[in-house]
């Protein structure tokens, strides 16, 4: 696999892990173990039971909830964390440190859930399903960013492209009463804006951040104007059909997994398909190699006969189509109507997910899931009545972003020519 060069570079830095990092990580694991005991276990009733729902009321086969004795579970989780911490301190997990870090953090989060649910119930299937659908616009945004940036063009206009896609899909969908036509027009809108961005940043070599910002402002103004003057005044223009949930036969009947993964709308399934296609296309095809070459070292690519401009245009426009598709999610896949600035910054979070995911499609998806989970968790906590002010709960995804961007997972690999216009001599 062509990406091995990448991941080898990536891992080498970890094999040569400094003793400081080893100790800090070990101490961190122990700290989490301590936190589970100190904050959670101490404040729980001995006899409390945490009950996790394993099916929503829509499921054909209703499963009994999964019931755990809160206190004992917390002790077990704390001990597991502590054991991991001890091993890390004494000999270290070397290149598996990151994997173990993920496991320990997951244990901590699970401990938190067990504690929060003490004496109450929480629907796990619902939580994971929300996580997945919250991840959709973020992941698609990340894929759009990956397409552009792998070819060396920074695209911060994803938000604006999404917003325009959302508006156009609602408008066209309402006019034609056909969701597919709306979806197609959203994709074309994204392509059009991306082409504008391409002309600015590839042909005229403007600062790509400025071009992106202009497109964002333009999209906000135009969509708000059309929305206020037409779509809100004539409700018939703002009532598109939506893509409802589809249950995949047989697979949907698998307990738990079926409800989480196989009963979803078009956009969720499309996201999985796009991730797989893009992952393969970028790292295993000639086209992908060319895109990456152009993004890393356009001059070398040019010398070898690759048309740098054409490659960049293609990638940017494909990225724009992806963003337009993501925009259609908000109207055709979610609310069934357009409202001003309804994308609410998801495009920018998509960019963060792209960086977080190290410019790799599957990584972007993992990041999208993390954001989705933090978001879903925040709302469940509010329902469970954890007395943390709502403002702090809403900060969760952003705190997660900052922790991650601050280098917990190590340095990312930015495409070398990212954001630099190519000057043909």
């Amino acid at each position, binding site marked *: 696999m062509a990406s091995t060069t990448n991941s080898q570079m990536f891992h080498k830095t970890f094999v040569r892990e400094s003793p400081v990092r080893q100790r800090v990580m070990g101490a961190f694991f122990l700290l989490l173990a301590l936190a589970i005991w100190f904050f959670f276990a101490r404040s729980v009733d001995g006899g409390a039971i945490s009950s996790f*729902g394993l099916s*929503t*009321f*829509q499921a054909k086969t209703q499963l009994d909830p999964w019931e755990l004795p809160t206190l004992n579970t917390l002790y077990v989780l704390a001990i597991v964390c502590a054991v991991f911490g001890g091993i890390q301190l004494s000999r270290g997990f070397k290149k598996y440190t990151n994997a173990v870090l993920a496991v320990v953090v997951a244990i901590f989060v699970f401990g938190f859930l067990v504690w929060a649910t003490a004496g109450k*119930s*929480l*629907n796990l*299937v*619902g*939580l994971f*399903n*929300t996580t997945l*659908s*919250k991840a959709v*616009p973020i992941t698609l945004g990340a894929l759009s960013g990956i397409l552009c940036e792998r070819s060396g063009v920074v695209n911060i206009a994803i938000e604006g492209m999404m917003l325009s896609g959302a508006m156009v899909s609602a408008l066209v969908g309402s006019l034609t009463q056909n969701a597919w036509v709306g979806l197609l027009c959203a994709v074309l809108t994204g392509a059009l804006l991306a082409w504008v961005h391409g002309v*600015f940043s590839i042909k*005229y070599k*403007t600062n790509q951040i400025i071009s992106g910002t*202009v497109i964002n*402002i*333009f999209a*906000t*103004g*135009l969509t*708000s*104007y059309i929305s*206020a*003057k037409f779509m*809100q*005044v004539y*409700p018939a223009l703002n*009532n598109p059909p*939506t893509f*409802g*949930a589809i249950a995949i036969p047989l697979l949907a009947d698998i307990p738990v997994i079926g409800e989480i993964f196989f009963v979803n709308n078009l956009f969720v399934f499309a996201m999985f398909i796009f991730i797989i296609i893009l992952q393969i296309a970028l790292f295993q095809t000639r086209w992908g190699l060319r895109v990456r070459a152009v993004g890393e070292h356009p001059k070398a690519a040019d010398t070898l006969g690759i048309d740098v401009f054409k490659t960049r245009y293609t990638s940017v426009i494909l990225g724009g189509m992806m963003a337009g598709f993501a925009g259609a999610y*908000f109207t055709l896949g*979610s*609310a*069934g*109507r357009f*409202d*001003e*600035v*309804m*994308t*609410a910054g*998801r495009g920018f979070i998509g960019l963060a997910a792209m960086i977080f995911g190290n410019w790799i499609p599957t990584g972007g998806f993992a990041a999208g899931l993390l954001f989705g989970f933090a*978001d*879903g968790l925040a*709302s*469940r906590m*509010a*329902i469970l*009545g954890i*007395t*943390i*002010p*709502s*403002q702090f709960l*809403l900060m969760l995804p952003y705190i997660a972003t900052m922790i991650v961007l601050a280098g917990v997972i190590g340095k990312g690999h930015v495409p070398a020519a990212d954001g630099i216009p190519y000057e043909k001599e």
Partner: protein
Amino acid sequence: MFKKLYLVVAVLIIASMALSACQQAATPAPQEPAAPKIKVCQVTDTGGIDDKSFNATAWKGVEDAMKELGVEGKYLESQQQTDYEKNINAFIEDGCDLIVTVGFLLGDATKAAAEANPNQKFAIVDFAYDPTIPNVLGLTFATDQAAFLAGYAAAGATKTGKVGTFGGIQIPPVTVFMDGFALGVKYYNEKHGTNVEVLGWDVANQTGLFTGNFESTDDGRQLGQTLMDEGADIIMPVAGPVGLGTAAAVQERGNAWIIGVDTDWTISASQFTDVIFTSVLKRMDNAVFEAAKEVVEGTFKGGLYVGTLANDGVGIPEFLAGRISDDLKAELEQVKADIIAGKIKTTP
């Protein structure tokens, strides 16, 4: 080549500015010219005149006044918070008899303008000055009373024993709905010995479920699904258009109801009528109309107007068929009478 580029960039920037400024112009409402009329002028909040929420409802009050009292109505939309002062001053220069400012956020700008122009009459929606200003009428609403009724009805109609609510941003005009709703459920429990739970708002601790914005309809959808997953079958979203996302989720899944806020959603969001349980009405149109009427009749006084169940400033519309039983309807009449008589407390 660069000339061309500058041209394109310039056009784009001008276009985006022009577009965002387009809604700025004062739009005189269509009406037949006549002798000097009383002018009622509305300054909107940033949501715009067609926000299907408080700006639109207040404007409906002005329109009613135009129809029934023969006044002249005008409005200016504020695109951003810095427009408030500018728009108010534009109307003062225009010689408006009554300036209606809409929204909690216009409180400071209105106060400053009222103090600088003591002869100009103002009415402000959702703001109560303490102490009151002699030339400003604050139009406030005891929405908790109407939400209390909705909560009581929801508790009586739920099949799962759980009802849910969430808000946009945790500010008093939002949480007052949630307080009333939760207390209504509690009152039903006390009366009937039931144990209906409210998900999403804890009156005692004043904590609960919020989207953090009034824009993302997708958030509304997700929170709606979350609440349904946790078993709620009647949901009241207090978050403007975000609630329409919740309505979409409820409509898709079925087996649940939605409670509208501010306006009657069976009219303003009629595509969701089949899942709308009831709406908590905040009759800003009535309040603005009353203020205009006082100006026309020369009885305008500054101070405070409080919309309550008693004066029809807040309320819930007639239930559509299939929502609640006749027994519950009768009980609601009694509860309403008790609230008006002051026998039931609707705030924490």
